[in-house]
C-alpha cells in the first residue's frame, strides 16, 4: 500500500501561510511569466513549514529525521570503525613487522661488521665461522631492506633512508671484499680497507637507527589511530536511540498504542549496534593496549638490549684492534675510548635486561632474559681476565680470551649465548604481541559492515513504523 501518495507535492494541505510570498502567479498573463525563481531550499522550507502544521506532515518529518539519524549513526560507526580497524590491521600486518624489520636490519648490519673486524683481528686469515656470520648478516640485511622498501611510502623519509642503505650496502661489501683479497696477500692494506669499510658502516648504522626510530614512530601513530573511543559514532548512536524513544513516546501519548513494530525494530537494531560498538571497541582497545604493553614494549627493550650487546662486542674487539690508540678523558682520567664505550654499552645492556625482566609477564618470557643476564655476567668476568692479560702485556692471552677458540673460554662465546637468549626472548614476545594484537583486531571484525547493515535495517524499520501510522490518515 503506498503509504503517502501525495508526498512530492503536498500543497494539498491548506496553503495559507505560503501565498504572501508569491505575488507573481496572482497576476496571470503578466509581462514576465517567471518572476525570479525561488531556490529549492526556500521552497523546501516552505513545504516543511506547511507540512508541520498537520499530523501526517509531522509524521513524515519525524520519519525522515529518524531515518537520517539512523543512517548517520550507521555510517559514522562504519567510518570510524573502518578507520580503527585499518589502523589495527596496520599495526599487526605492516607497522610492527616493519619496525621489527628495521631492528633486524640494524642488528644484521652490526653483526656483519663485527664479524668482519673480528675476522681480521685474528691477525691471520678469517675463520669459516666469522665469514659465515658476516655473510649471514649481509644477506639478512639485504633481504629485509627489500621488504622495507616495498612497504614504505614512496618519497617518504623512511623510503629515502632505505634507498641510501640499499645503495651503500654493496659499496660496503665491495670494500670488505677488497680488504679480504689484500689481507690474503699479506698486505696491511687489507686492514686499511677494513677501516674504511667500518667508517662507511658507521654511517649506515646511523641510517638504520633512524629507520628503526621512524618505523617505531609509525607503529605508535597506528596505535594512536586504532585505540581512541569512536565518540562521534557513539554520540550519533545515543542521538538516534534518543530520537526513537522520543518518537515512540509521542506515539504512545497520541494513540495510546504501546508498540510500533517498525520503531521497536529500529530501536533494537540501534541498541545492538551501539552495544556492539562500545563493547567491541573496548575489547579491541584492551587487546591492542595489551599487545603494546606486553608485546611492543618488551620487543623494543629486547631489541635495544641486543643492539647494546652488539655494540659492546664491537667495542671489545676494537679495544684490541686499536691497542690503546684512541683515548678519552673521563672524570679527568685518560681511559681507552673503546674500552670505555664497552663499559657504557654493558651498563646499558644490563639495564635493558633488567627492564625486559620486569616487562616479561610469564615464565616463558622471563627465562631467556634471565639466561641472557647470567651469560652477560660470565661475559663481564671473562672480559676482566682479558683486560688484565692485555694490561700485563700479554696481548696474545687477551686475544685468546676475546676471540679465541671455545677451549680458551673466550668472551665471544658469552656474547653468542646472550644473543641466542635474546633471540629466544624476542621470538616469544613477538608471538605474544601477535596473539594480543590479533585478538584486538578480531574484536572489530565485522563491526563496520554489521553496523551498516543494522543501521539500514533500523532506518527501514523507522520508516515503516512511521508509515504505518501515516496510513491511518487515509
Amino acid at each position, binding site marked *: 500500500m503506498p503509504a503517502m501518495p501525495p508526498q512530492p507535492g503536498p500543497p494539498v494541505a491548506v496553503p495559507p501561510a505560503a501565498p504572501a510570498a508569491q505575488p507573481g502567479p496572482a497576476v496571470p498573463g503578466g509581462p514576465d511569466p517567471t518572476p525570479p525563481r525561488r531556490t529549492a531550499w526556500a521552497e523546501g522550507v516552505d513545504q516543511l513549514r506547511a507540512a508541520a502544521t498537520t499530523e501526517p506532515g509531522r509524521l513524515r518529518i519525524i520519519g525522515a529525521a529518524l531515518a537520517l539519524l539512523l543512517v548517520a549513526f550507521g555510517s559514522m560507526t562504519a567510518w570510524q570503525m573502518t578507520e580503527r580497524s585499518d589502523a589495527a590491521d596496520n599495526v599487526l600486518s605492516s607497522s610492527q613487522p616493519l619496525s621489527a624489520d628495521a631492528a633486524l636490519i640494524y642488528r644484521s648490519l652490526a653483526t656483519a661488521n663485527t664479524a668482519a673486524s673480528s675476522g*681480521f683481528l*685474528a*691477525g*691471520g*686469515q678469517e675463520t669459516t665461522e666469522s665469514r659465515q656470520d658476516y655473510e649471514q648478516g649481509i644477506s639478512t640485511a639485504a633481504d629485509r631492506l627489500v621488504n622495507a622498501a616495498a612497504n614504505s611510502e614512496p618519497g617518504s623519509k623512511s623510503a629515502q633512508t632505505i634507498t641510501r642503505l640499499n645503495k651503500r650496502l654493496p659499496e660496503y661489501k665491495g670494500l670488505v671484499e*677488497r680488504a679480504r683479497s*689484500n*689481507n*690474503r*696477500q*699479506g*698486505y*696491511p*692494506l*687489507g*686492514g*686499511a*680497507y677494513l*677501516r*674504511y669499510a667500518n667508517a662507511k658502516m658507521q654511517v649506515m648504522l646511523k641510517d638504520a637507527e633512524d629507520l628503526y626510530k621512524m618505523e617505531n614512530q609509525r607503529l605508535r601513530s597506528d596505535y594512536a589511530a586504532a585505540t581512541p573511543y569512536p565518540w562521534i559514532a557513539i554520540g550519533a548512536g545515543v542521538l538516534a536511540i534518543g530520537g526513537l524513544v522520543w518518537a515512540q513516546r509521542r506515539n504512545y501519548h497520541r494513540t495510546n498504542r504501546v508498540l510500533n513494530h517498525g520503531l521497536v525494530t529500529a530501536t533494537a537494531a540501534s541498541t545492538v549496534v551501539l552495544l556492539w560498538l562500545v563493547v567491541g571497541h573496548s575489547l579491541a582497545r584492551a587487546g591492542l593496549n595489551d599487545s603494546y604493553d606486553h608485546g611492543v614494549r618488551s620487543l623494543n627493550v629486547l631489541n635495544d638490549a641486543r643492539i647494546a650487546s652488539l655494540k659492546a662486542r664491537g667495542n671489545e674487539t676494537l679495544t684490541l684492534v*686499536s*691497542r*690503546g*690508540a*684512541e*683515548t678519552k678523558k673521563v672524570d679527568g682520567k*685518560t681511559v681507552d675510548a673503546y674500552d670505555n664505550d664497552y663499559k657504557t654499552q654493558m651498563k646499558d645492556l644490563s639495564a635493558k635486561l633488567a627492564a625486559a625482566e620486569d616487562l616479561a609477564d610469564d615464565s616463558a618470557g622471563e627465562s631467556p632474559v634471565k639466561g641472557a643476564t647470567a651469560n652477560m655476567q660470565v661475559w663481564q668476568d671473562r672480559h676482566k681476565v682479558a683486560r688484565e692479560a692485555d694490561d700485563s*702485556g700479554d*696481548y*696474545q692471552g687477551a*686475544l685468546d680470551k676475546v676471540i679465541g677458540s671455545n677451549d680458551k673460554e673466550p668472551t665471544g662465546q658469552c656474547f653468542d649465548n646472550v644473543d641466542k637468549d635474546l633471540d629466544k626472548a624476542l621470538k616469544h614476545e613477538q608471538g605474544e604481541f601477535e596473539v594480543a594484537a590479533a585478538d584486538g583486531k578480531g574484536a572489530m571484525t565485522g563491526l563496520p559492515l554489521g553496523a551498516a547493515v543494522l543501521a539500514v535495517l533500523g532506518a527501514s524499520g523507522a520508516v515503516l513504523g512511521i508509515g504505518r501510522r501515516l496510513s491511518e490518515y487515509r
Partner: protein
Amino acid sequence: MKARRVRAALKGWGGVGAMAVVLALTAVFALVLPLTQSRGDGSTGIGGQGVASGTQTKAEECTDPQDQSLAPSADETGKTIQDIRDRGYLLVGVDQNSYRWGYRDPNSDSKTIELEGFDIDLAHAIAGEILGDRNAIRFRAIPTNERIPAIEDGRVDMVVRTMTISCDRLKEVAFSSPYFETGQQVLAPKTSDVKGYDATLANKKICTADGSTAWETLDADKKSGKLVASADIKTTVPNQLDCLVRLQLGEVDAVVTDGALAASQAAQDPTVELKGEPFTTEYYGVAMKKDAEDLVRRVNQVLVDYRENGWQQSYDKWLKPTIKKPAGPPPVKYQ
C-alpha cells in the same frame, strides 16, 4: 767512529758541560729578562754559551732539526729511565699499518700475533738495552696525528713510528738522533699524467695523512706558490696507507708521503709508482717527552750501537725489497 769519539770526549767533559749549561742558562736569563731585545746578539756568541743558545733560538732559526738531539749517554740513573725500569716494560707508540715498518703479517706462520718491521726491530733493540729484555715492550698503535698527544699524555714512553724530526715538533717533543733518511715523494698510478711534484699536479686531488709533514709541506707550498694553486689537498686520512685506499678507489689522483712509506705502498699495489724525485730531505727520529733528557741520551746511546750492529740487517730484511736501493744509517750530529 765519530760517535765513539764524541762519547769519549763527553765522558771527560760531562760534568764541565753540565756546569757550563747551568751557567749559560743563568747568564741568558739574566740577559733576557731585563733586555729582551738584546737576546739575538747575546746568544749567537761565544763558546760555552753556544749549547744553551741552541735551545733558546730553535724556534726562530731552526734549520737542521735532525742535528738538535742531545749527546748520547749510557747513564741510567735519570728519573724517566728509573720509572720505566720500575714498571718493567717499555710503552712504545708504533704503527700497525705501515708495510715493512710496523705491521702485522696476516700470513705469518707464528702462532702469536706480533707486530714486525723496521721500526719494530728498533723498538726491540731499545727495550733490549734499557731493560735487558727485547720483549719487555707494550706496543700502542697510534694514528699519525695522535703521536705527539700520546707522548705528552704519557700514554707512551716513546714513539717509533716513521716520525720526521721537524722544527715544529721540536717545540713539543724531544727527538733522538736521526735513524733514517727519506724525503717526500709523489705516488700515483703508473698510467697517471702526474709526473712528479710539479705543474702536472694541477687540478689533481692529493691525499696526505692528517698531522703528517707531507701535509704541512703541501699546505706551506700552496700558500707560497711552490705548489700549483689548483691542486686540491683537502683529503686527509688518519694513516698514510688510507691514502692508497682512496687512490685505488679513484677518490684521489695522487698521494704525497715520505718516499720510504710511498715505496711500501707501491709494494702493495703493482699498478702505482713513485713519480719524480724526493722533493724534501727528512730524517726519522724516536720521539720522547720533551723533558725526558735522560731517556733521549740513553736512546741516542742505543742508536750509536744499533747503527753499527742491527741497522743494516734490519734494513736488508724489511726495506731493501721495497726501496730496491742499498742504504745506510744517516750521518749524526748532536747539539
